[in-house]
């Protein structure tokens, strides 16, 4: 192996700075959320306490945090399930050329590049003009899918590009039905990527703001509630909320990563 040149150390420092840039602000608000009861939005820390976390769980002056969190988690779960099922199915379809496959792929990519405000405004108007009530489980659900599904499909296309069809052919030669060969051959091979899609679906929905803004109706999701708080709350309770939701996101991400890693390890053990 070649010795490391100066370039490596310069780039390492650059990368370290980038990581600091990504995580630094989040770490700051986590620290500041433990501010004492008389502390403000910036340093110095005025003692340390759990005061602002306790305030989160008291009835709020504005909004309904508990309800918003519940709705957001439910919606994220729905988006996750639908994203996984629909992207895997469409991924299977795209392994063959079929009539309209080009158009459907173009539409999916278009869904990724249409500015979010158009989806929000369009879905909102569609519901109000056709006399339907906008709600988080109907209009916001659909609007969020236009963002999560393209990611899911692109992951599946990448997976099936590298997929060795001979496994499936072997299963079919052994007499497996299409469902059996999917369930026992294809699914185990693509499972880590499927968990990746689930993670995308969940987090994209859980954090989605622009596509939900005009489509959620009268019951806010958590990001909408947080956005409302930014304009009229000027205490560290905002940071406490940030710490809690970021912690929740990290928990979901960690669960997905650990599952993916253990699946990979099990596969390697079996192969050995």
């Amino acid at each position: 192996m070649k010795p490391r040149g100066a370039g490596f150390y310069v780039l390492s420092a650059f990368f370290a700075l980038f990581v600091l840039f990504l995580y630094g602000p989040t770490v700051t608000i986590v620290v500041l959320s433990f501010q004492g009861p008389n502390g403000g939005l910036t340093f110095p820390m005025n003692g340390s306490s759990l005061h602002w976390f306790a305030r989160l769980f008291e009835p709020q002056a504005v909004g309904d945090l508990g309800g918003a969190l519940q709705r957001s988690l439910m919606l994220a779960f729905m988006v996750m399930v639908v994203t996984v099922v629909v992207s895997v199915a469409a991924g299977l379809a795209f392994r063959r050329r079929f009539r309209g496959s080009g158009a459907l792929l173009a539409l999916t990519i278009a869904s990724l590049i249409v500015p979010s405000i158009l989806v929000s405004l369009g879905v909102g108007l569609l519901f109000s003009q056709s006399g339907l009530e906008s709600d988080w489980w109907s209009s916001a659900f659909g609007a969020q899918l236009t963002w999560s599904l393209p990611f899911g499909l692109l992951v599946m296309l990448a997976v099936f590009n590298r997929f060795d069809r001979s496994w499936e052919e072997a299963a079919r030669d052994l007499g497996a039905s299409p469902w059996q060969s999917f369930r026992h051959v294809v699914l185990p091979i693509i499972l880590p990527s499927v968990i990746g899609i689930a993670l995308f679906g969940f987090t994209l929905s859980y954090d989605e703001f622009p596509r939900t803004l005009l489509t959620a109706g009268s019951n806010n999701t958590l990001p909408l509630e947080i956005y409302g708080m930014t304009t009229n709350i000027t205490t560290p309770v905002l940071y406490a909320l940030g710490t809690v939701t970021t912690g929740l996101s990290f928990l979901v991400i960690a669960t997905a990563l650990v599952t993916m890693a253990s699946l990979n390890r099990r596969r390697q053990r079996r192969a050995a």
Partner: protein
Amino acid sequence: MSITAPASATADAATRIDHRPTGRRKPAGSLAPYLQATPLALILFAFLLVPIAVIVVVSFLDYNSVQILPNFVWSNYTDTLFDHVTWETYLNTVKYTVIVWAITLFIGFWVAYFLAFHIRSTVMQMVLFLVCTIPFLTSNIIRMISWVPFLGRNGLLNSALLRIGLIHHPLEFLLFSDFAVILAFVHLNTLFMVVPIFNTMMRIDRRLMEAAVDAGAKSWQVILEVILPLCKPGIAIGTIFIVTLVMGDFITVRLMSGGQRASVGLMISNQISLLQYPAACANAVVLLAVVLLMIGGILRLIDIRAEL
């Protein structure tokens, strides 16, 4: 990989398939892709195509202060296109887009280059890649708010600068300014540049770089003459993401500028809150056209089909 179905079930399946007339399997096989693709097509039809059609229709309708009126008019377009405020707003939004693009391209290229060519173990590569990815799976709004203790009048940056004597009064331009808007855009969206560039870099045949070195190229020449041209499709995809994310944004500009700066998305969202839906729709159609033109321009310069 093992098939865990009991042997008898597999045998049953085998006999079933054996006895089935071969002619019956074909139509089922050719129908399958349509059934599998239908849910995706339906969802995108209902929640993307139809809503955009609604926007286009409403953009030609008249309105008063309470409701949309079913009269065909051009005025929503002429009002916005002949207003100099619209042009200034577009100019400001394009300015954000170009600056954010340049910064994210610079950061994205070097971060991807470091991960792809300087990290030698695959495990380490994965770990560092995840370290870059994880923040992008957390709430954008919280990540914007988290700049407040840094940039505020009494924030970390100002107090640090005051302490080392570089400034004597707190800098006012840090928060609620163009600076804060661009900083937040870069913070939120750099990953969309890193991932596509990293992808193309991982596919570059390492022998090309060795050949360049053998032919006497210095390391900066390898980067400039070999890696950069081969990364173009990744750069194009990253650019498309940045263009649509920044051009259509309204929330970052509103939060980080404290409502003191304009963007196209913000203009549209203001019209929506005034219930001027047809005007908002006309602006949305114009925005979509501009974004599509920009993307068309990028695709004309760089062929990305190999990446899809």
